[in-house]
């Protein structure tokens, strides 16, 4: 049995091998070798179609991080089969196409590595049952897409496009990840199948709604839904095979896959219905509306893809309503939207793949994609023209092409949904058919633009760098195969319906009994009904609009460039950057004093604040030891000496005052019965003073502090605050009902450690380890000082590094 896990890993392995093979295989284009991968996988998958069609699913687990419930579990069912076939099928064709598109001068080893990486990742996304693993592959698609978009990374636009795509899709992915984690929190599992089975118990959970929104964010960003669509046009900087593969047929459909996959989880919910369908509709409209004004063929296709993805998305939204109503004879009608979605998904992949390849051919052969420089190609590029017509008309929703069938089903679904009596659709439902219809008109218009402005009308060879000529045969094979599907599906739709769509309907509606019920027969002709009227309307109005394009095009001027989402994205990035710079440099002043003030203020606020807020402060002087006169005088001496340090005019005075403090502390150590301390303090203080004097030789006399009085006042307040807080906590600690200290134990020092000096016994024995490390500290300091003095920057060294 062929393991799906292997199917996922296989491209990764080959991807890793490609750079090595590339070095070995000089005589033949490496693409031929690479192409074997998707073809093999496609054949392996295709052989499973009959079993899947009969309702069988394949499930396989490979332990990865079992202790965290993260396992490489794959699940092959109808839904994943569709995507698996698309990924491998379109993948094979795209690689074939790319063999002729990319010259051997390009760094092919990178290209095909990335492409295989992407393929594996994409297969991983659609076959993974474990959400974490799904996410792993999800992000890998973003990463590989990033690499592919930035393939010509010496171009600034490529890099920017790659960054935009990566940021938006990864951000969505991160949101989705949070959603997945929340699902795990609710259901206790990462397995989609198990979640589908148990989710009904959690629909009232507080996390249910946030989870749904987060998962949708992932889907919407990936599938370029409004307003996240902005990355897709910029992603057209990628080589055209990449656009044909990732940005029309596969990666952008990952979001569709996710929504379809999660329909059984969230499908019955009102928020799900409205957000998926409305966002889809908006995307569809906005995409088609904007496609019309694109002078760049590839950009036109990008917006068209956005629009078509919106269409599919909205259909999935509409279809989810069936889950709210529940399985009944009435609700089956609503599942047809989902059916249409899956159907159009396939259709779109076929015609859009072909169209991208057409643009690739034009670009490759003529060196431009700008419709203002093109026209009249049909005579010299007849095959290309044919492909363009087939693809374009299918996209426009005309017979005899597959796009017509799914477009009609789409209209039907919108009309039906406006009659549903849940979710206030009685009132608002009517917007669906209206928006669908308007969007389709624009779709029709840009399809005409695509075909007519490129291939018909007068040729403008003077605007081209190269003579007009037909593409090599190799480049035409792939789009022609896709066109064959475009036409073939129109004539034999039920074959697709039965073997491919029906099992996937079972995946979306697992609770809906026999999937056969959910699978309608698809007819090209279904009488004069609402959808056909709508289609006719689209053609008539569309043709009119195309004719009058020059007159109404200024309408686009109303949509100021300033307020596009693209500008929003750009200004968000740049203002984040600017704002961050201002804020960061605002507090990271480089002044030590400022940093210290932050730290002190934080100390005062948290420690002092909490001390009072919690009522922990207490003071009790009754248990104090007595005070002698001389002690009081010495305390006074220390206080005065300390304060005098602040006003000392010369550094040496201050140093001497510090010495006075040190000596006075020594005498307090005497008063407090700490002979060892007194000795140490005395020596250390003297040596320290000597060090100060030594260093003063190298340092200038200090000047008056010239800080502003405001700074000084702040410093004073902070200082007093710190002093007071330290003092108050000390009072409270002193008044705390103490535990017996562990020190009593050390009073047996003589028996235990053979020393009568307890302090020394502690230092040498009980806590000898501290002493040992303390010596190390001292040693490091000594050695470090030596190093600091002896090792100086070489004069000629720049101040940058090493």
């Amino acid at each position: 049995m062929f393991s799906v896990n292997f199917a996922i890993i296989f491209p990764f392995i080959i991807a890793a091998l490609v750079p090595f093979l590339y070095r070995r295989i000089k005589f033949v284009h490496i693409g031929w070798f690479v192409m074997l991968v998707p073809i093999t996988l496609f054949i392996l998958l295709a052989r499973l179609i009959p079993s899947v069609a009969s309702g069988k699913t394949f499930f396989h687990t490979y332990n990865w991080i079992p202790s965290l419930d993260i396992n490489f579990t794959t699940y092959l069912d109808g839904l994943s089969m569709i995507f698996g076939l698309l990924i491998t099928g379109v993948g094979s064709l795209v690689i074939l196409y790319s063999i002729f598109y990319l010259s051997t001068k390009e760094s092919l080893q990178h290209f095909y590595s990335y492409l295989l990486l992407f393929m594996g990742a994409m297969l991983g996304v659609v076959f993974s049952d474990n959400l974490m693993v799904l996410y792993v592959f999800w992000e890998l698609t973003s990463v590989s897409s990033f690499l592919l978009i930035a393939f010509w990374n010496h171009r600034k636009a490529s890099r920017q496009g790659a960054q935009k795509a990566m940021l938006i899709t990864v951000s969505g992915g991160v949101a989705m990840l949070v959603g997945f984690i929340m699902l795990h929190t609710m259901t206790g599992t990462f397995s989609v199948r198990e979640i589908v089975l148990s989710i009904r118990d959690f629909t009232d959970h507080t996390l249910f709604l946030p989870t749904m929104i987060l998962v949708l964010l992932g889907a919407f960003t990936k599938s370029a839904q409004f307003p996240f669509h902005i990355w897709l046009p910029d992603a057209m900087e990628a080589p055209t095979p990449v656009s044909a593969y990732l940005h029309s047929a596969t990666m952008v459909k990952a979001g569709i896959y996710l929504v379809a996959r999660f329909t059984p989880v969230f499908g019955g919910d009102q928020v799900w219905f409205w957000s998926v369908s409305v966002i889809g509709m908006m995307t569809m409209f906005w995409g088609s509306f904007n496609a019309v004004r694109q002078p760049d063929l590839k950009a036109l296709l990008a917006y068209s893809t956005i629009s078509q993805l919106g269409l599919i998305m909205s259909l999935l939204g509409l279809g989810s309503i069936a889950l709210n109503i529940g399985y009944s004879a009435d609700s089956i009608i609503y599942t047809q939207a989902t059916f249409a979605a899956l159907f159009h998904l396939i259709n779109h992949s076929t015609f859009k793949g072909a169209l991208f390849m057409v643009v690739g051919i034009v670009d490759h052969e003529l060196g431009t994609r700008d419709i203002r420089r093109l026209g009249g190609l049909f005579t010299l590029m007849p095959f290309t023209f044919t492909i363009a017509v087939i693809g374009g008309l299918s996209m426009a929703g005309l017979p005899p092409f597959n796009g017509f069938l799914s477009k009609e089903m789409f209209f039907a679904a919108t009309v039906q949904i406006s009659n549903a009596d849940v979710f206030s659709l009685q009132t608002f439902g009517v917007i669906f058919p209206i928006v669908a219809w308007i969007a389709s008109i624009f779709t029709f218009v840009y399809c005409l633009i695509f075909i007519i402005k490129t291939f018909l009308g007068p040729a403008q060879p003077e605007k081209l760098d190269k003579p007009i000529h037909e593409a090599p045969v190799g480049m035409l094979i792939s789009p022609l195969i896709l066109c064959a599907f475009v036409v073939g599906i129109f004539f034999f739709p039920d074959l697709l319906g039965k073997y491919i769509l029906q099992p996937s309907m079972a995946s979306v509606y697992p609770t809906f009994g026999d999937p056969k019920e959910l699978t309608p027969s698809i007819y090209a002709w279904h009488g004069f009904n609402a959808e056909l009227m709508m289609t006719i309307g689209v053609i008539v109005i569309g043709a009119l609009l195309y004719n009058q394009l020059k007159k109404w095009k200024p309408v686009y001027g109303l949509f100021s460039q300033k307020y596009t989402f693209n500008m929003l994205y750009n200004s968000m990035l740049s203002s984040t950057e600017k704002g961050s710079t201002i804020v960061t440099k605002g507090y990271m002043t480089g002044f030590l004093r400022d940093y210290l003030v932050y730290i002190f203020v934080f100390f005062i606020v948290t420690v002092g604040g909490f001390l009072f807020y919690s009522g922990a402060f207490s003071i009790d002087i009754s248990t104090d030891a007595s005070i002698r006169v001389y002690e009081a005088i010495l305390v006074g001496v220390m206080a005065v000496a300390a304060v005098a340090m602040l006003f000392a005019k010369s550094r040496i005075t201050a140093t001497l005052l510090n010495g006075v403090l040190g000596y006075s502390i020594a005498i307090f150590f005497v008063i407090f019965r700490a002979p060892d301390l007194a000795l140490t303090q005395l020596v250390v203080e003297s040596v320290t003073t000597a060090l100060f004097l030594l260093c003063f030789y190298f340092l200038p006399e200090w000047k008056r502090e010239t800080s502003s009085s405001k700074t000084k006042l702040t410093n004073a307040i902070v200082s007093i605050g710190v002093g007071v807080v330290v003092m108050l906590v000390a009072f409270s600690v002193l008044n705390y009902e103490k535990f017996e200290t562990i020190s009593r134990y050390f009073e047996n020092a003589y028996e235990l450690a053979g020393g009568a000096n307890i302090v020394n016994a502690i230092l040498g024995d009980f806590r000898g380890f501290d002493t040992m490390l303390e010596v190390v500290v001292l040693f490091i300091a000594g050695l470090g000082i030596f190093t600091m003095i002896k090792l100086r920057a070489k004069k000629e060294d720049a101040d940058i590094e090493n």
Partner: protein
Amino acid sequence: METLIIILIGILTAVATYLILSRNIIRVILGTAVFSHAVHLLILTMGGLKKGSVPLLKEADAPYTDALPQALILTAIVISFAVTAFILVLAYRAYQDLGSDDLHALRGTNDE
């Protein structure tokens, strides 16, 4: 006595804080020195003052004053000596190479 010493600790701390906020590096270093004085007294005070005799077993009789804080302070004194020595040398090395002992002048060039 404890109260008095704690007030002294408060004063020393405040003075040290003010010093460490200065622009002149020597004042800052002196601030760190005063900080150590304050905390050494604090450790001793927190262990209790004059609560027993000198912690020498043959010298005096129990109860002994708490010896553990004394050992801790001893360690702390030596460490703060090491650190003070280091930063002093650092200060003059910085002055030699950067030509200033004013921390305002040692702000550093941020990029852009």
